[in-house]
C-alpha cells in the first residue's frame, strides 16, 4: 500500500489542483505540489530502507496483474525521479511566479511525477506502459503549456505523435512476449526467459520491438526530432522531463529488461550502434545551435546516446549510473539556463548573451559546474560515469574497440560544445539589452543542491580498485553479464586518456569560442549543424507530407466507394424503369402478355 501511496500522493495533487487550483493563491499550489513530491521521495527512501516492497491487484486484466515492485533498480530510479523532481518543483515556484497558469503547471508536474513513478515502480509491462504513455501525456501538456502560441502547441503534438511511434513498438513487443510466455509480469518473464529455450529469433524480435519504444521515448536516432522542439515548454519542464527523468525511461526500460537483452547479442549490438550514432548526432547538432536551451537539448540527445551505448554493450548498471549523474548536471544546466532566461526577460538566443558571469554570479557558478560535469572534467560526476561507459565498451561482453574510439571522439565533441555554451553565455561582453538580475533564492537553492550532485555524485561508483556502491546495489535487479576486467594499469591509463581528451576539448572550445573568427569550413558546418542536419525537413518532405496527402486520398476514396454503392443501388431503379415501360396501359398489350405468360408456363410445364 505504501507503494501505491508513492503514486497516489502526486496524483491526488494533480486532481486537487486541477479542480480547485484556480482558487488558491499563488505560492500555495506550488508548495503543495512540492510537498507531495517530497513526501513521495521520503516514501521511496523508507521503502528502500525497508528492503523493498511490492503490491498488486491480481487479474487486473485477464491474466495481467496490476503490480508495483520496489526493488533496488526501481528504488534507485525512484530516488532520482522524486529527488530531482522535488528540487525542480521548488525551483518552479520561483520560475513560474506570476504566470496565469501557475496552479495548472503544478497540477501537470504532479501528474508527471505520478506517471513517472508508475513507470518506474511497474512490476509488469502493461503497468509500465500506463506510466510510459502517462508521462507522454504530461510531456504533451507541458510542452504545450503556453498553448496560445501555435509553435508550442505544434511541438507538443509532434512530441506525442513521435512518441506514439515508439509506443507502438512497445505494444507489439508486449504482444510478442505475451504470445511466447503467456505473461507480462516482469518477474515471471525473467524467470521464464532465464530458464526457457524459446527461439532466439522470436526473443530478438521482442527485444527489438521494446527497443523501438525506448528509441521513441529517449529520443534516439531516428525518432529524436521531437526533443529539441520540446524545449517550447517552460524550462523546469525541460529540466525535469526532457533531461533528467522521462527521456531516460527508455534506458530504464532496457535495464529493467536486461534479462532479455543480456541474451541477445545482435539486438544489443544494434542498440549500441544506435546509441553511438545518436551520441554523435546530438553532439554535432549541439555545436551549431544558437538557442541556449536547444544546445542543452541536443546535448541531452547525445548523452542519452551514451546511455544506450552502455546498455548496448551490456553495462546496465553503468547506464543507470550515468542516468543519475546526467540527471544532476543536466537538470542543473537547464535550470541555470532557465535562470539566465529569467534574468534576461525571456531571451534565449546565445548571440544576445555573453558576459553574464558578472551579472549572475551564482548562476554562473551553476552553469560552469554543470558544463564541466557534462564535458567530463576530471573528478566531476559526468567524468566518472562517462568514462565508465567508454571503458565499458572494452570490458563488457557486447563491446568493441570501434565503440571505444567513437565514444572517445564524441566525448571530445562534448567537451567542445559544453565549453561553447559556457563561453557564449557567461564569458565575453554582454551583447543584449535587458537588465540581468540574479534569480531569487527559491530558484538558486535547488540549483545549489544539484550542483553538489553534479560535482560529487560520481564518487558513488569509482573504478577498481576504489569503491563502487552502485554496481552491487543494483546487481540483484539486473541481468548477470560476464565482464572481462581490464588490467588495472590499462584501465587507469584509459581514464587518464579520456581526462586528457576532455581537457583538450575544453581548451579547444575555449580558444575557438572566445577568440577570433572561426575558419570557413566551420561556418559551413555551423549552418548544417544549426539546422540539425535538416532531418526535420527531410522527414516533412518524405514522410509527413505524403502521409497527409494520403489521408486526403483516402477520404476521396471513401467518396468513390460511396458513389459505387449508390450506382449499384441506382441500377435497380434503372431496371425498375425498364420494367415499368411494359406497363403500357393498353388492355390489348396486357392480354397479350398474359397469354404469353400462359404459353410459357404451358410450354415449360407440359411439353418439356
Amino acid at each position, binding site marked *: 500500500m505504501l507503494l501505491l501511496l508513492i503514486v497516489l500522493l502526486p496524483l491526488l495533487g494533480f486532481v486537487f489542483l486541477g479542480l480547485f487550483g484556480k482558487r488558491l493563491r499563488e505560492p500555495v499550489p506550488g508548495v503543495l505540489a512540492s510537498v507531495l513530491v517530497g513526501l513521495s521521495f521520503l516514501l521511496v527512501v523508507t521503502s528502500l530502507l525497508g528492503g523493498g516492497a511490492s503490491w498488486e*491487484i491480481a487479474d487486473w486484466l*485477464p491474466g495481467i496483474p496490476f503490480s508495483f515492485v520496489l526493488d533496488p533498480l526501481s528504488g534507485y530510479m525512484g530516488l532520482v525521479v522524486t529527488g530531482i523532481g522535488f528540487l525542480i518543483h521548488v525551483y518552479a515556484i520561483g520560475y513560474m511566479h506570476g504566470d496565469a497558469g501557475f496552479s*495548472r503547471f503544478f497540477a501537470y508536474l504532479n501528474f508527471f511525477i505520478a506517471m513517472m513513478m508508475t513507470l518506474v515502480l511497474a512490476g509488469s509491462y502493461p503497468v509500465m506502459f500506463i506510466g510510459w504513455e502517462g508521462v507522454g501525456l504530461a510531456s504533451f501538456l507541458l510542452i504545450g503549456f503556453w498553448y496560445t502560441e501555435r509553435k508550442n502547441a505544434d511541438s507538443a*503534438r509532434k512530441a506525442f505523435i513521435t512518441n506514439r*511511434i515508439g509506443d507502438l513498438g512497445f*505494444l*507489439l513487443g508486449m504482444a510478442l512476449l505475451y504470445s511466447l510466455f503467456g505473461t507480462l509480469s516482469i518477474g515471471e518473464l525473467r524467470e521464464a526467459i532465464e530458464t526457457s529455450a524459446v527461439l532466439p529469433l522470436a526473443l530478438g524480435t521482442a527485444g527489438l520491438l521494446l527497443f523501438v519504444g525506448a528509441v521513441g521515448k529517449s529520443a534516439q536516432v531516428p525518432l529524436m526530432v521531437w526533443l529539441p522542439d520540446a524545449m517550447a515548454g517552460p524550462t523546469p519542464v525541460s529540466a525535469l522531463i526532457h533531461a533528467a527523468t522521462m527521456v531516460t525511461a527508455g534506458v530504464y526500460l532496457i535495464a529493467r529488461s536486461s534479462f532479455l537483452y543480456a541474451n541477445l547479442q545482435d539486438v544489443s549490438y544494434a542498440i549500441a550502434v544506435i546509441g553511438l550514432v545518436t551520441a554523435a548526432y546530438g553532439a554535432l547538432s549541439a555545436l551549431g545551435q544558437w538557442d541556449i536551451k536547444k544546445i542543452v537539448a541536443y546535448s541531452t540527445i547525445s548523452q542519452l546516446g551514451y546511455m544506450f551505448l552502455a546498455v548496448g554493450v551490456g553495462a546496465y548498471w553503468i547506464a543507470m549510473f550515468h542516468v543519475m549523474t546526467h540527471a544532476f548536471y543536466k537538470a542543473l544546466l537547464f535550470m541555470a539556463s532557465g535562470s539566465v532566461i529569467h534574468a534576461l526577460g525571456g531571451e534565449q538566443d546565445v548571440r544576445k548573451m555573453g558576459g553574464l558571469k558578472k551579472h549572475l554570479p551564482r548562476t554562473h557558478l551553476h552553469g560552469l559546474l554543470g558544463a564541466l560535469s557534462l564535458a567530463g572534467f576530471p573528478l566531476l560526476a559526468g567524468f566518472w560515469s562517462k568514462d565508465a561507459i567508454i571503458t565499458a565498451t572494452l570490458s563488457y561482453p557486447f563491446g568493441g574497440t570501434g565503440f571505444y574510439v567513437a565514444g572517445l571522439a564524441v566525448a571530445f565533441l562534448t567537451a567542445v560544445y559544453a565549453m561553447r555554451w559556457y563561453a557564449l553565455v557567461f564569458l565575453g561582453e554582454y551583447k543584449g539589452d535587458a537588465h540581468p538580475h540574479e534569480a531569487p533564492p527559491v530558484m538558486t537553492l535547488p540549483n545549489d543542491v544539484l550542483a553538489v550532485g553534479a560535482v560529487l555524485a560520481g564518487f558513488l561508483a569509482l573504478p577498481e580498485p576504489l569503491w563502487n556502491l552502485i554496481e552491487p546495489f543494483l546487481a540483484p535487479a539486473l541481468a548477470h553479464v560476464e565482464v572481462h576486467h581490464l588490467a588495472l594499469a590499462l584501465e587507469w591509463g584509459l581514464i587518464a586518456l579520456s581526462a586528457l581528451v576532455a581537457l583538450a576539448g575544453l581548451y579547444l572550445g575555449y580558444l575557438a569560442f572566445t577568440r577570433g573568427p572561426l575558419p570557413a569550413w566551420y561556418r559551413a558546418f555551423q549552418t548544417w549543424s544549426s539546422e540539425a542536419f535538416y532531418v526535420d525537413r527531410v522527414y516533412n518532405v518524405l514522410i509527413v507530407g505524403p502521409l*497527409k496527402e494520403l489521408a486526403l486520398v483516402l477520404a476521396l476514396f471513401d467518396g468513390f466507394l460511396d458513389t459505387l*454503392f449508390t450506382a449499384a443501388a441506382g441500377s435497380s431503379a434503372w431496371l425498375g424503369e425498364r420494367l415499368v415501360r411494359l406497363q403500357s396501359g393498353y388492355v390489348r398489350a396486357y392480354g397479350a402478355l398474359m397469354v404469353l405468360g400462359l404459353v410459357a408456363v404451358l410450354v415449360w410445364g407440359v411439353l418439356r
Partner: protein
Amino acid sequence: MIHVTIFLPLVFGVLALLRPTGARALGLLGAAVTLVLGLFGYAAFLDGASAAYSAPLLAEAGVYYAVAWDGVGAVLMLAVVITTFLALLAARDVPPAMVGLTLMMESGLIGLLAAQDLVLFYVFFEATLIPSLLMLGLFGGAGRIRALVKFAIFTLVGSLLMLAGILALRYLGGAPSFLLADLADHPLGGVAGRWAFAAFLLAFMVKTPLFPLHVWLPDFHAENHPSGLADAMGTLYKVGLFGLFRWTLPLFPEAFALFQPWLLALAALTALGAAWTAYAQTDWKRLLAYGALSHMGVGALGLFSGTPEGAVGAIYLLAASGVYTGGLFLFAGGLHRRFGTLDLRPTSGLAKSAPGLAALGLILVLAMVGLPGLSGFPGEFMNLLGVWQASPVWTFVGFLAVIAAAAYALGAYQQIFHNAPDKPAPDLDAVEWQWGALAVLTVVFMGVYPKLFTGPLLTAAETLVAAMGGGR
C-alpha cells in the same frame, strides 16, 4: 427485474412521446431509473443472482422470449444505460419527440443484449432501427434523406439476408428451436454453413461497421441532430461485434476458420484506413465517425483472432467506445450550441476562456486515443494480445492506427482549444458539469479498474473460444 430493465425505457419513451411538454423530465427520470436498475442488475449478475427467463413467444415456430444476462450482455448493457442517461442529460435542447425515441432505442438495445433466442435478438435488433431511422429522418440535417436511405438499406441488406441465414442455421443445423443453447449444440458446417455464415457476417459487418460496408456511417453521424443525442444512441447501436461474438462465431466455427485470414485483413485495413481518413476530416462528427470506425476495426481484429484475450478486448472496447464516443458526440453537441457549427475550427485557443470544457474534451479525446488509464486502453490492449497470436502482420497494420489516432484526435483538439485565442465562449455550465463529471468518472473507472468487467467477459470469451474449437 430484467424485464423491467428492458421495457421500462419503452414505457417512459411512449409517455414522453405523448406528453411533449414534460418530455425532458420524463426522459431523465426514465433513463435514471433504468440506470439504477442496470447497475443493480449488474451487481446481481456478479453475485450470480440473476436468473434466466424463458417463455414461448411463437412456440409453434420455435421462438421464445428468452432473456438472461451473461458476461457480454451485462457489460454492454451497462454501457447502454450509462450512455443513454448521459446523452439525455447532456442534450437538453432537443425536440421532445427525440427524448421518447431515445428511450425506445434504449429498450431495444437492452433487449437485444439480453436476448437468448436468435429470433428474439433479431426482433430487438431490427426494432431498434425504427426509432433510429425516425430520429434521423425527423430531426436530421439537410442531407438526412440520403443518409437515412443509405443507413437503412445497408442495415437491411445485411439483416434480411441474415434472416435467411437464421432459418438455414436452424433447419439445416437441426436445432429444435432458436434458443442460443440449442443452436450452439447444433453448429452448422459445410457449404451451407459457409453461406449462412456469410449472411450473418454481412449483417454484422454493416453494423460493426467494417470496410467496405462502412459508407453509411459518416453520413449517418454528420446528418443527425447536432445535439449528438442521436449519434450517441447510434454509437450504442453499432452492435456488430456483439452479434459476431454471441450469434455468429460460436455457431459457425468451421466457416469462420475458413474466412478468418480475410476477416483479419479486413479488420486491420478498417482500423488503419479509417484512422487515416479521419485525419482529413473537417467536421467533428465525421471525424468522430471515422475515429470510432477505426476502433471497431481494432475490436474486430481482436474478435477475429479467435482468442479469449481478443474476444474480451473486442467487447470491452465496444462497451468503452459506447461511452467515450457517445460522450464525444455530446461534446461536439456542446460546441455546436456555442458556435452553431460542427466545423473543426469555429474558433481557436478556447482553453483560455473555457478551461473546463477543454479538460473535458481532452479526457474524452484521450480515451479515444487509447491512453492507458482511460477506458479505451484495456480493450485495445487485450485486442493486441489476442490478435498477435493470430497474425503479427495484421496486428502491425491494424495497430498503426494507434499512431494515426494521436494525429487526428490531438490535431482536431488543438485546433479548437490551443493556438491564439479567438472567439471566447462560456465554460461548462451546471448541466455540462453534471454529465461531464459522470462521463469522466466512467471513462476513468473503466480505465483504472477494468477487473470489474473483464472477469465476466473472460468467462464468456472462453466459452466462445471453446465453441469455436480452440481454447486452452
